[in-house]
């Protein structure tokens, strides 16, 4: 049956009456097949369309990325508990989705994250300590987006997908063969901006990969409150492909994202990748998931842990020995320590920073207020004398 002929085909009628069917069907009822290259047990499986050939070195590299990212994330969570950060949004459980997709990008690609892409930031070479500034409250994003082609975190959900699309339109205009990745969550997928981005990307055939980490939750809302059918299917209605990948399988995430990026580079336009994963922790350190979700679910997902499965594979392959793991453990600890120290040493901004960088070309009112504020501050210094 071709897609065209479905147009003229009557929607199938269900025999149910409204009373019984008024509630949305749970979208995950008939679980679509995920692209998977590594089973939860660490077994390497083949897929007809996607594959990656990696050396042991490269496999260990992915493993190291995930381990260090998780360690960094844990450190940040504990820094928040110690009062060093105001908030932290943990990526626990999403390491494979982030490292797989992040490592698929090339240096000249450009990445637009949400607020949880610490693993992607790591892949792009952003100093982890730099990510903590906004969570500590010393800035709204401490890095130069152009240094690593990694945009600032965007908190208003979905907005960045349009920026990514526009950026990709610019890439295409420039005739460059780089591509753009826009990250967003299952919850964000409901925003009009995200769908407008899908449409702009399709119409302009922009070289952008929409990478959704479907971690099953948007704070307290499970995906069935967000959408009626699996998200990857949405792409097709805009005229580009959607793929669902096992988001806890770093190899599959790498393969699928690489493929999508190559499509983009070849001028074949956008792809939607839905990485099916799970938010193992709370939404942020301010959140308490016990209010709304059953811990059984989380426990079940523990068996699918992204790091564990790659470790099993590395061990089975003989690609890493205990010495390697011990060394990595030590590197992790050192990294944690370095981050901890960096955060503790992070100075509060000078109060005059309130008035800095509001405009590139200045603004008379800001200048006036800056001067008033400085005089006001000085008056206290005077009094204190």
């Amino acid at each position, binding site marked *: 049956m071709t897609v065209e002929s479905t147009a003229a085909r009557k929607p199938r009628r269900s025999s149910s009456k409204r009373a019984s069917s008024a509630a949305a069907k749970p979208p995950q009822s008939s679980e679509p097949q995920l692209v998977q290259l590594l089973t939860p047990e660490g077994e390497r499986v083949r897929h007809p369309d996607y594959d990656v050939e990696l050396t042991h070195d490269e496999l260990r590299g992915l493993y190291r990325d995930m381990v260090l990212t998780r360690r960094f994330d844990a450190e940040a969570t504990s820094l928040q508990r110690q009062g060093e950060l*105001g*908030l932290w949004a943990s990526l626990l459980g999403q390491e494979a989705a982030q490292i797989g997709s992040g490592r698929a990008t090339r240096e000249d690609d450009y990445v637009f994250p949400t*607020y949880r892409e610490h693993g992607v930031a790591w892949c792009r070479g952003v100093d982890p300590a730099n990510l903590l*500034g*906004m*969570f*500590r*409250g*010393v*800035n*709204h994003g401490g890095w130069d987006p152009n240094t690593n082609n990694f945009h600032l975190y965007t*908190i*208003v*959900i979905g907005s960045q997908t349009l920026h990514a699309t526009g950026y990709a339109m610019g890439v295409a205009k420039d005739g460059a063969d780089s591509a753009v990745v826009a990250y967003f969550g299952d*919850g*964000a997928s*409901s*925003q*009009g*901006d995200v769908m407008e981005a899908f449409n702009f990307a399709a119409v302009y055939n922009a070289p952008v990969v929409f990478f959704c980490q479907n971690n099953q939750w*948007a*704070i*307290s*809302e499970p995906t069935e*409150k*967000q*959408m009626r059918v699996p998200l990857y299917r949405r792409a097709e209605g805009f005229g580009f492909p959607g793929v669902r990948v096992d988001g806890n399988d770093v190899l599959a995430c790498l393969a699928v994202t690489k493929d999508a990026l190559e499509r983009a580079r070849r001028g074949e336009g956008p792809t939607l990748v839905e990485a099916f994963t799970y938010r193992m922790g709370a939404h942020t350190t*301010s*959140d308490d998931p016990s*209010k*709304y979700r059953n811990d059984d679910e989380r426990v079940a997902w523990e068996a699918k842990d992204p790091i564990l499965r790659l470790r099993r594979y590395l061990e089975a392959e003989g690609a890493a020995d205990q010495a390697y793991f011990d060394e990595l453990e030590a590197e992790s600890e050192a990294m944690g320590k370095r981050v901890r120290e960096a955060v503790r040493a992070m100075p*509060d*901004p000078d*109060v005059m*920073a*309130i*008035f800095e960088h*509001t405009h590139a070309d200045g*603004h008379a*009112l*800001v200048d006036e*207020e800056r001067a008033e*504020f400085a005089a*006001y501050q000085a*008056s*206290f210094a005077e009094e204190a004398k």
Partner: protein
Amino acid sequence: MAASKMPIAKAINESLRKAMENDPKVLIMGEDVGRLGGVFRVTDGLHKDFGDGRVIDTPLAESGIVGTAIGLALRGYRPVVEIQFDGFVFPAYDQIVTQLAKMHARALGKIKLPVVIRIPYGGGIGAVEHHSESPEALFAHVAGLKVVSPSNSSDAYWMMQQAIQSDDPIIFFEPKRRYWDKSDVDTDAIPAPLHKARIAREGSDLTLVAYGPMVKVCLEAAAAAQEEGKSLEVVDLRSMSPIDFDTIQTSVEKTRHLVVVHEAPVFLGTGAEIAARITERSFYHLEAPVLRVGGYHTPYPPARLEEEYLPGLDRVLDAVDRSLAY
């Protein structure tokens, strides 16, 4: 129950519960308002008692939330919409200013839009970007909307009752950093009209006008000034659209000095309108120009700077001194 002490968040929760009990058409809609009870727990327990049909966790799309709330209102429901934080209301801004605000007039009064939009607003909670803004002027300037904000638990309770009962769309700004401040609520009281200002403290030397989170700061400033022998009157505005200018005018014609305080940027903030209009009304009574204390014309700064950014006791007293020095 009658009088009891409770935090503002609880007072709103009780008020929502009461409205839902009284009228089956009242619905709660928003992100995480269900099982979680909202990120500030303002709707805590309502989902458990009223179920999915009346306490609706929506997809994460503010325009969709307000747009469908309008449709529900057209069908006879009375939706109370929660916007999770001030900075997230803007995706819904078009539906609010273009549809919600204008549809009653467009229909020559033939349809009513009893929609309440609850927005926790303001800073002081050490949050990341977009979680500390005070966008009330952006709504108050828009014809067709009414904009209110309580500063204490009793007003939180009663103003929410009145907002839900009103047949007009109302933007209900909740002072998030005061959510846990406790004060008395008398559920048997007869409340003042929704859009009437309240004299929060009497005084004779200067009038301070504030609303929401700044009322507390102004009351503290008045107490501090008292010790220096200055008697400040504090007006809790309660409504930013319409503004009860009569109450302000009466106060100012007594004190002859006016300082308006809000967290929102001063430039084109509600203080601008109060200054302009009171100056016009009481030109010959004022001994000093109306002074304004508020946010600066900068994006809301990172948390470690917000104490300096937000109007505090010192800045209010500084303005008081400057006014009285005229």
